[in-house]
């Protein structure tokens, strides 16, 4: 669709105290495509495709066959972003399914163009978060040199999903004999 290769980095995994989330996701406006993920247990957490604002126009132009970079985002851009979100997140989930043998299904996407920290804290607060003081962040960088696009995928698993992931990682590292 972009007529270019997109590479995906190995995920970086961090446990972050909620008071320090702003150090990892700030308030620079970005396009965020959000998915709720359902695993074997319902509501496994959230997946988020982050596209830096400076990259959004380049990305949607490449998809829509446009060249003008100094323009406002319209409905076509929004639908292109949702489509990229679907494709990237499916690729990411295929990867995790292959590696961990864990099935995660994304909900329909929702697009927000706003401050990433504001979106993420709202997600955490909307869950039953009285007992949530830390979040686990899986971050994968997406790179497309041809279009100079900066993008990442974040996975915020909830507790049951996280335990499932950790158990399967341990099995990978110490295969049962």
């Amino acid at each position, binding site marked *: 669709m972009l007529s270019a290769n997109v590479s995906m980095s190995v995920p970086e995994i961090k446990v972050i*105290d*909620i*008071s*320090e*989330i*702003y150090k990892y*996701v*700030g*308030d*620079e*406006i970005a396009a965020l495509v*959000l998915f*709720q993920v359902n695993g074997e247990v319902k*509501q496994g957490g959230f997946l988020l495709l982050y596209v830096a604002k400076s990259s959004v126009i380049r990305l949607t132009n490449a998809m829509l066959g446009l060249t003008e970079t100094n323009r406002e985002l319209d409905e076509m851009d929004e639908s292109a972003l949702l489509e990229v979100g679907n494709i990237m997140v499916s690729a990411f989930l295929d990867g995790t399914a292959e590696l961990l043998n864990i099935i995660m299904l994304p*909900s*329909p996407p*929702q697009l*927000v*163009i*706003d*401050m*990433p*920290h*504001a*979106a*993420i*804290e*709202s*997600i*955490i*607060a*909307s*869950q*039953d*978060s*009285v007992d949530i*003081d830390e979040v686990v962040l899986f971050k994968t960088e997406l790179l497309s040199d041809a279009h100079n696009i900066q993008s990442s995928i974040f996975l915020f698993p909830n507790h049951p999903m996280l335990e499932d992931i950790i158990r399967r990682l341990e099995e990978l590292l110490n295969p049962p004999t």
Partner: protein
Amino acid sequence: MSLMPTGNDTVIIGIGEYQVGSMPMASIGLGSCVGLVIHDRKMGIGALVHIMLPSSQGKTDRLGKYADTAIDVLIKELTRNGSSPTNLIAKIAGGSAMFKTFSGNLNIGERNVEVIRKLLKDQSIPIKGEDVGGCVGRTIFYYPKENGKLVIKKGDGTLGEI
């Protein structure tokens, strides 16, 4: 990453944290959370807290995370620093609803604001400025020495002051 008009002396208040003093303070990217300022008009000091949820439900480990424990601890800390309760005013920003369709408690921002308003009223602290609700993120900068000025940068690109 972020707009920092004040330089390095600004203290960033993360989710569930609070700070009392006269230095500039900021909270980055408020969504459904609420930035609450309680400002002492006479002394030029004040406090900023980044509240996430309306009720602590008896928890006492993160006082700034919940509206009820946050307001109590801010008043206590300001009083300890010499503030008289009659000189205190409040400003609030945040409490937006960024999502419409996900499952979960999506009106948490509105609930945060409601509870904070009620608790401030119970303590007789007047709210002198607010910028709440909508579906937009906010970054806020609080300047205790400049009459408690609160500068608000929004996700739609606008800049305001209350």
